[in-house]
């Protein structure tokens, strides 16, 4: 391409649509599944945003005071109530699992079947521990009398929003864990090396799907950070 034709290209804002739209694909070299996951996550972001904004509105307009969260969420450690102890561990585990997921993606692209598989398993176990601790926290709160419709500490909406939003997030984590186990099996079986066809979709397997699963997993972790901030720190 000569220099003069380069000068004819649109400049400034006008270059944005022409850069995005002048070729066959809008996102260069991005596998379809990966683009799909990004857009799905964008849509999912709207779901969680609606939840959290509703929570803010609900919390702002209750007639009874909101419970003191640092008291409700504290855990007795050697007889001393420590606020945020359990939740700190949960958050740590989940964020760590994001790290192992990133390593799994790296080893996947290096076609290091063994390491990739083990790191996926580690991620899955991290997710399981998180869900387990969440179940523990739920049962602890339920024992203390917190219900979706009422609780002894203050506004009934506390339990409603807490169980709904952490439950919705926990469901996301659980679905992720299930897929992590399925993918660990696929990696160890070598599906991604041989390009084995999917049972349902009949499409060829590819290591890129580990990255797609990784995107989902990182998203679930990121959402948790917001839930953590809104429920436990506010």
């Amino acid at each position, binding site marked *: 391409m000569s220099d003069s034709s380069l000068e004819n290209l649109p400049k400034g804002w006008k270059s944005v649509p022409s850069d995005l739209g*002048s070729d*066959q*694909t809008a996102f260069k070299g991005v596998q*379809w599944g990966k683009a*799909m996951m990004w*857009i799905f996550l964008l849509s999912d972001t709207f779901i969680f945003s609606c939840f959290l904004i509703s929570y803010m509105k609900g919390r702002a307009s209750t*007639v009874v005071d909101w419970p003191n969260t640092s008291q409700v969420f504290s855990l007795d450690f050697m007889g001393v109530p420590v606020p945020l102890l359990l939740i700190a561990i949960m958050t740590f585990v989940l964020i760590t699992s994001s790290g192992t997921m990133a390593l799994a993606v790296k080893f996947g692209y290096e076609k290091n079947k063994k390491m990739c598989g083990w790191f996926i398993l580690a991620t899955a176990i991290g997710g399981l521990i998180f869900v387990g601790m969440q179940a523990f926290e739920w049962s602890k709160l339920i024992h203390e009398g917190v219900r979706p*419709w009422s609780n002894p500490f203050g506004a009934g909406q506390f339990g409603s929003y807490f169980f709904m939003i952490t439950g*919705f997030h926990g469901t996301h984590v659980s679905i992720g864990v299930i897929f992590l186990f399925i993918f660990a099996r696929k990696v160890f079986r070598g599906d991604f090396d041989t390009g084995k066809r999917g049972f349902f979709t009949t*499409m060829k397997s590819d290591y890129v799907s580990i990255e797609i699963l990784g995107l989902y997993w990182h998203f679930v972790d990121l959402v948790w950070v917001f839930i953590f901030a809104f429920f436990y720190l506010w």
Partner: protein
Amino acid sequence: MSDEYEHKLEAKSDYATEASSVSTPDIDAVPDAELPDQELYHSHSWWTTYVFSQDAKYIGIQYALTAVGTGLLGLVLSWLMRIQLAFPGLGWLDPAAYYQFVTMHGMIMVVYLLTALFLGGFGNLLIPLMCGARDMAFPYVNMLSYWAFVVAVLVLLASFFVPGGPTGAGWTLYPPQAITAGTPGYNGGIILMLISLILFVAGFTMGGLNYIITVLQLRARGMTLMRLPLTIWGIFTATVLAMFAFPALLVGCLMMTLDSLLGTSFFMPAMVSLGEKLTHEGGSPILFQHLFWFFGHPEVYIVALPAFGIVSDLLSVHSRKTIFGYRMMVWAIVGIGALSFFVWAHHMYVSGMNPWFGFFFATTTLIIAVPTAIKVYNWILTLWRGNIQLSLPMLFSLGFIVTFLNGGLTGLFLGNVTVDVPLSDTYFVVAHFHMVMGIAPILVIFGAIYHWYPLITGRFMNETLGKIHFWITFIGSYAIYFPMHYQGFVGVPRRYFEIYDSPYIDTSTLLLNKFITIAVLIVGAAQLLFLYNLITSARLGKKAEKNPWKANSLEWQTPQMPPEHGNWGKELPKVYRWPYDFSVPGAKEDYIPQNQPPSEIIGAKVEKT
């Protein structure tokens, strides 16, 4: 991206450059393929071909038929409501049944007919064909999307058979009354309605991801975004809107389900019902209205934008003229889509919100009139000095322009807070939204069906029956909705199951109600004529040759018509221009298909696109 994928890609593009440099002269060059050819699912049995089909064309037709079937129920419900309103003495419906029919009619028409037909039906049929792809990006997910829709419809219909019947809360489902004793279906029908909507959203998300990725990543060589037919721009933007608007509906539905089943108080304030204090306390009913309308307003454009796009193409093809201001049209579609997320509270002017809030939303609402007016002007300028063929699609498109303009102008009244307050909850509102998002998009749907019927069946629909259908529908709609504007002005409230002969209600209202109802019955019957035409023409219609309307867009350029599995035979099409080169000076024919190489039309003064 894996190395293997990279490698395949490279091999493919090498091959493409070689082929184009050897066999064709330079002016026919199109950019190299960026992707390997799509791998397709091939069905092996009757079940996987026709029932659990993974071919977007079949899925589109499945979606369309299911949507139309559900829509017929909505039509019958409107008949029953109108008979009740015109002849309350007959006692056809009790108040509960009337509210239930209002609710089901509204929800069915907006969500299960229009949304499903435009995006699920036309989207699936046209996106791969018009973009020059073999199929959607994820055929299996696409199939799941349709079946989730079927389950959603079945759950919705099941609500007619539960104790208490379907919900009668109005299509907006406002709490607290939606789940409080006294409203029909408050503990059975409403739950099924909410579950059905959640299923619909889940199903739609699967389909919507497909539409977006297919448009962005699966276009044919040379098919830049600014060469896409406006139909695709409309459907694409509507899908993006839906992906961001439906989450609010999903969240609202989920929270109301919990309010009803678990006794939480998200939306429920403390209240006394049937003389007893309810256990609910401290919730915010307004919160639901915000969630609902954050979905509800973009939903209007989810229905309208595909109609805008389709009608642009119909007008251009049937007046043999380039669409006026293509880029402006694209930006208007995108702009309307973006603005539609900032206007939702204009549905809530009477909810007691802060007047400054109303001022803000009135302003944004009126700003939307700008891109919308640009579109209307451009449609008219497309017709200006065109070679207008009064074919069925053209008749319906012209009907659309007039109807949409009418509905849009009443929208300016309702968008202003001060004018809206006295008009709100009157028949003026009913007339406005039926004109603008009921009749107008439906006219486009009819035009589109008459236009693309040959592509699906290889035959035309009967022209005479079609013209009868058009004139009855067009004039009939005005007979129905024009009087309603007047009724609204004299203050007749909507959602009353019986208009009494009282000093507060004009006697003309009672007479007009009878007139409207007779018009409704006639217009409804004309739709049965359309269905008869639709069914019989598949066998008996006049045979259509290839590309019967002499259109430029890719869906008519497939090797076979109707297109086969995989759409394009051995080789994918190459695109050299936009789809609007009609009546080009110097060209032999008055149309130049998008995939006709420049070497075949030397001398034609085509626009550079």
